[in-house]
């Protein structure tokens, strides 16, 4: 049985393709049942916005075709899914999952969200996974944790929206309970708001030129968020802690006068303004005001780039951990495969021995019971002698992680092709 991963990710497929391959949680069981029906013994489907990957434990070699066929159907435009994808087998497949779980294969190096997604994928696929993939995913989660604990590959915030959280955090410390106002309805502002909300910030106000759009975002952000028009927003500068600006205005709408007017009522409390709009929504002079901290998209990208650079220096250490863990898994996996094959091998030779012994004894009717027993012991001793060296060699190879190739050779040489669990 081999372990295979096949799928697409942000490096091999454009967004419109990845979007079509993405499987919602409720679609996972049906997809896996289809792949298992094609001959796989176990399967796990990992589907995120950046990757859709099928992990298979399979013997027949036909399950991958079923996966490509399933994904091609989702494209529904005549293109084949395989042209966007990749296949990794055995040790490379294990390494791939470990790197994914550790965030080494992510668009943002070291991001932690992927580990939760790997865990969720395993939980959704648990009934279809089988023992090998079960163990593989358990170990992948442990590898992800180990890499993040023992290296700094997950340190800092390496994306612009999460850098917004880092900057606000350097001003306010604990962000839980802080209040934020969103001006405008840009995608980046929504992402930054989502990051802040995950840290406990209450996005209580959403202001937009179009009131309906503001209300839609407010509803999306949950209870407690209120929609405003832009004109209503200025008075709230006196109360909130964080302002995220992302309007499509062609010129700065947050002026020095408007912010300065709100400062007296703030009683020297810091105000963090994150201007994510291009062209900028906030006059640069606003940043000169006492206790006002103004950052634009370039600043966020600088923070993110610095974190990414720090993370990149940790790649060799992280890869070293992955290598160690791959070897450990492969040793376990080789050992797992050795036991049933050795049992088959011994059983097959034992059957031959018994048959040949019976045939020989028929030609020797004058032997006493003691002599018959002596002959039987001789054949058993010979069989044990013959089996000893291959058994030791196989177990050693399994411990070294090289057992799989030897087992395959043994199966072919001795015709041990019977399907096993």
């Amino acid at each position, binding site marked *: 049985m081999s372990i295979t991963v096949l799928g697409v990710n942000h490096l091999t497929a454009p967004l419109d393709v990845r979007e079509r391959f993405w499987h919602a949680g409720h679609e996972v069981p049906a997809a896996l049942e289809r792949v298992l029906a094609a001959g796989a013994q176990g399967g796990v489907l990992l589907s995120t916005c950046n990757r859709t990957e099928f992990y298979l434990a399979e013997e027949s070699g036909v399950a991958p075709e079923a996966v490509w066929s399933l994904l091609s159907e989702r494209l529904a435009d005549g293109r084949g899914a395989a042209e966007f994808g990749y296949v990794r087998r055995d040790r490379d497949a294990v390494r791939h999952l470990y790197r994914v779980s550790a965030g080494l294969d992510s668009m943002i190096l070291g991001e932690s969200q992927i580990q939760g997604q790997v865990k969720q994928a395993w939980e959704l696929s648990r009934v279809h996974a089988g023992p090998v993939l079960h163990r593989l995913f358990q170990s992948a989660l442990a590898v992800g944790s180990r890499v993040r604990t023992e290296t*700094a590959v997950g340190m*800092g915030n390496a994306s612009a929206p999460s850098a917004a959280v880092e*900057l606000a*955090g*350097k*001003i*306010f*410390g604990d962000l839980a309970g802080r209040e934020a106002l969103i001006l405008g309805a840009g995608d980046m502002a929504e992402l930054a708001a989502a990051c802040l909300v995950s840290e406990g910030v209450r996005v209580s106000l959403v202001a937009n030129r179009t009131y309906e759009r503001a209300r839609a975002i407010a509803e999306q952000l949950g209870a407690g968020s209120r929609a405003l028009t832009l004109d209503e927003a200025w008075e709230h500068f006196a109360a909130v802690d964080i302002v995220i600006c992302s309007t499509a205005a062609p010129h700065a709408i947050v002026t020095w006068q408007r912010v300065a007017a709100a400062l007296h009522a703030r*009683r*020297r*409390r*810091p105000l963090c303004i994150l201007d994510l709009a291009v062209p900028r929504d906030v006059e640069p002079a606003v*940043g000169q005001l*006492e*206790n006002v*901290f103004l*950052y634009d998209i370039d*600043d966020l990208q*600088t*923070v993110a780039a*610095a974190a990414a650079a720090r993370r990149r220096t940790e790649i060799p250490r992280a890869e070293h951990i992955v290598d160690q863990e791959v070897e450990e898994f492969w040793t376990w996996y080789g050992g797992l495969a050795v036991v049933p094959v050795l049992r088959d091998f011994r059983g097959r030779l034992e059957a031959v021995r018994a048959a040949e012994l019976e045939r020989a004894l028929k030609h020797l009717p004058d032997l006493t019971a003691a002599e018959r027993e002596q002959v039987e012991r001789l054949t058993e001793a010979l069989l044990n002698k013959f089996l000893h060296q291959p058994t030791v060699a196989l177990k050693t190879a399994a411990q070294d992680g090289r057992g799989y190739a030897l087992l395959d050779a043994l199966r072919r040489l001795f015709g041990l092709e019977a399907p096993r669990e």
Partner: protein
Amino acid sequence: MVLSLHLIALALYGVATALALAPFLGVGAPWRVLMLAVSAAGAALHVVGVSQLPVVGLAPSLSLLALCLVLLQLASEALLRASAVALFTAPLAAGLVGLALLLGLAPGAEVASGRGAWLLLHVALSFFGVAFLALAFIAAALYLVQFRQLKTKRFGQVFQYFPPLERLDRLNQFALVVGFPTLTLGVLLAIGYAVHFAGAVQVDKAQVVWGMFTWVVLGWAVWVRVVRHWAGRRAAFASIAGFAAVLLVYFALKLAVPGAERFL
């Protein structure tokens, strides 16, 4: 024994200084636990060393002040994760212990039991009060540096390893609000001690002047924070100015009456 304990504490404070400086020397941030362990080990040995010293004299006073600073550093780290405080306290403690060793440390004779406990409490509370003022100064200095980093958008090592502004502001307020009653109690004990044992103890005017001046400065710093609601940069400048004034007055008085026998 006293010397050995102080020497080991000095070495550990030296290691703590190196660990605190590590991120700025490109070595990478030390484990927080390691930093805490080294400082705590130094403080533990230092406590034993200080307990064998006399309660008066410049060298024992410097040693006690260093110990108070390290204990406050550990408390700041544990309560507010303000690791960067060690950037000031660790070298300061090492310097003070080193100076105390140079001036000469020796086990002291025990003062008569009633007076001894009274004096010990006065000295300990007073030095903790001064150490709290120093901690307020350190938090204020860190605040101003981090404020500048955030305003000028420099996202380097200081930005990375210094605590957030509001946490430093809180540490500054905490140090002042706790430090003032501590010092007040120390001063009250001194007054009570002088009255109770009138004639038996020699009270130096310089000590009285510096003690009262420090108390007034600390009281003013608390007043502007708590009553006038100063916060942020203004409060930081107030703490720095107050601590600088206390140091200046001390050095001025010390220059007027030099000598290593007395703290003042």
